């Protein structure tokens, strides 16, 4: 009887079996990587805003404090975005006729707020609160990166749950003295043994709750 398959198909068959293992592992790896990539998380993506507002100008060059604009960051869940009047405090006088500021002036005339595009947006089922973090010595730059260097705001962290938990499990690796919270130059993470030891003493000093409380599901999924 003639052979249905040529002899070479034997090798091909073996190759597919072994190959399948590698292909499966590779696919899994690609899926895991894509899941964490900025394509999925929106990390590093610079969002074009209705006004070309630059933190680099205002914070880096002019040294304006975060709280001047994000007024509720120490007291509320949301940091809040500045009202048009806040901008106009200065821009009535300086750069008062810059074309870049036209949308701001129009908003001021009409009373219609500027519609900023959200950069960070947690899903609604996750609860986040700025005030607790800021008051327990977690600096803006730990989560938001060096905002003072950003001409256009972008998301510096993945905002995925593993990122939150990475800190909630070991807060001593991140906390800093409270007075340094708004300091963009301060280290974002405690790396050396001394820094971690300081972090540990701050955890005690600020009465930061133990990881079993901070990582319990209902802390963030209320």
């Amino acid at each position, binding site marked *: *009887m003639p052979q*249905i*398959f040529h002899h070479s*198909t*034997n090798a091909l*068959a073996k190759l597919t079996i072994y190959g399948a293992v590698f292909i499966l592992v590779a696919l*899994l790896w690609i899926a*895991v990587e894509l*899941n*964490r990539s900025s394509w999925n998380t929106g990390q590093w993506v610079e969002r074009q805003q209705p006004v070309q507002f630059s933190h680099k100008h205002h914070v880096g060059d002019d040294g304006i404090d975060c709280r001047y604009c994000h007024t509720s960051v120490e007291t509320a869940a949301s940091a809040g975005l500045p009202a048009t009047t806040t901008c106009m405090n200065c821009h009535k006088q300086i750069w008062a006729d810059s074309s870049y500021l036209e949308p701001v002036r129009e908003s001021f005339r009409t009373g219609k707020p500027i519609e900023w595009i959200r950069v960070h947006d947690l899903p609604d089922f996750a609860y986040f609160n700025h005030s607790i973090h800021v008051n327990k010595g977690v600096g803006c730059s730990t989560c938001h990166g060096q905002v003072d260097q950003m001409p256009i705001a972008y998301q510096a962290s*993945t905002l*995925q*749950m*593993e*990122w*939150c*938990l*990475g800190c909630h499990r070991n807060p001593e690796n991140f906390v800093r003295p409270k007075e340094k919270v708004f300091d963009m130059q301060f280290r974002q993470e405690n790396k050396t043994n001394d820094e971690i030891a300081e972090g540990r003493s701050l955890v005690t000093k600020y009465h930061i709750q133990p990881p079993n409380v901070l990582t319990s599901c209902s802390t963030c999924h209320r």
Partner: protein
Amino acid sequence: MADEPHNLGPLHHSTAPVVAPGLTFASVTDKISSIVLKRKTPLWWFLGFALSFILFQLLLLTITKLVFEGIGLWGVNVPVAWGMDILNFVWWIGIGHAGTLISAILLLLRQKWRTSINRFAEAMTLFAVAQAGMYPIMHLGRPWLAYWLFPYPNTMGIWPQFRSPLMWDVFAVSTYATVSAMFWFVGLIPDFATLRDRARSKPFQLLYGLLAMGWRGSARHWHRYEMAYLLLAGLATPLVLSVHTIVSFDFAVGIIPGWHATIFPPYFVAGAIYAGFAMVLLLTIPLRKLYGLESFITMRHMHNMAKVMLATGLIVGYGYVMEAFFGWYSGNHYERFMIWNRMHGPYSGYYWALILCNIITPQFLWIKKLRSNLLVLWLLSLVVSIGMWLERFVIVVTSLHRDFLPSSWGMYQPSTWDWTMFIGTIGFFFTLLFLFIRFLPMISIFEMRTILPDAEVEE
């Protein structure tokens, strides 16, 4: 050759031989492979397949609706959050167990009679597990996220809860499905080769040729083959016990009265084998008749399966008695109420129907005359299948609907979509089964050859 084959000596105490006398290597191969390759597909096949396929559409419809609307479509709600979906899951998984028992344990115990039914029973296992697996996945509500059940490096930074029996279920059932599929496929390889060599049309030669994976039947092939098959049997054997044990843990680890019982694992395993054999009988009795396979699947098989059913039925009956006894003997208020509520509560009809189906009816199997009557045997199997479904209903629903707090009591009513889902899985099961009997040898050709008298080597 005409009379009782000499090699079946030790089995003489039994009434009927494992294979009918007079079969030879060639006639066995011919007869089984011709069902797939030569014979015209009978009309009843088309009718049966069409009917199953229509019912299968009901499943697809239900699932589609479920995905869009959520599981509120079903009748489940607090307090009975595990309704038909979990009970059907357990029912289907249980049915699969007979296949594994027949193919693995009976192989290791060298029970030759298993040979003519193991292929079919394994197929049944596989198809039943496929139905079972669908239920918990659909119950997730977001079935596309079912992969969250597996421990993989996820972006949530947490592992699944390894202390939960629901997690163990994932492993138990997926291992079971994998091993069963491998066992089945490996068992089919030599037969694929036979079909490849006998097929006359090119596409079928190619198809069966691909599946045969280059099988030539050399001594080396056979040597490795036997080794692999035995290893897989060894792997599958503990699964017969472990899978349903873990399914029973889904209940037993919970603290709900009526679930929290140490008797659950053995009682579930026995129930699974009981239901499984009932299903094998339910399917083989008509099939054997329709395809004229009486010389392969003999009365001996029917008797043996009936006996297994009787034995496991008695174990299950013992389980029910013990459940009631311990409910009373515990002196625990809630346990006693649970048993009382089962017998007299709003679902007492289900309970007594279950006792009737699972304890009373199988007693007829003691009587040889009834066991030999295939119609009676078939009807008894049907009753047992229904009984085992009722058992799961009673366990799931009666325990949940009245738990510790009277304020959280409620009733459970399966919705129409619960039923369409169930009927749909039956349709899907039979669709697969019809395809199987049409395109694959439903009896293992090469294993049949080995138990023929011709295969015996004279010393």
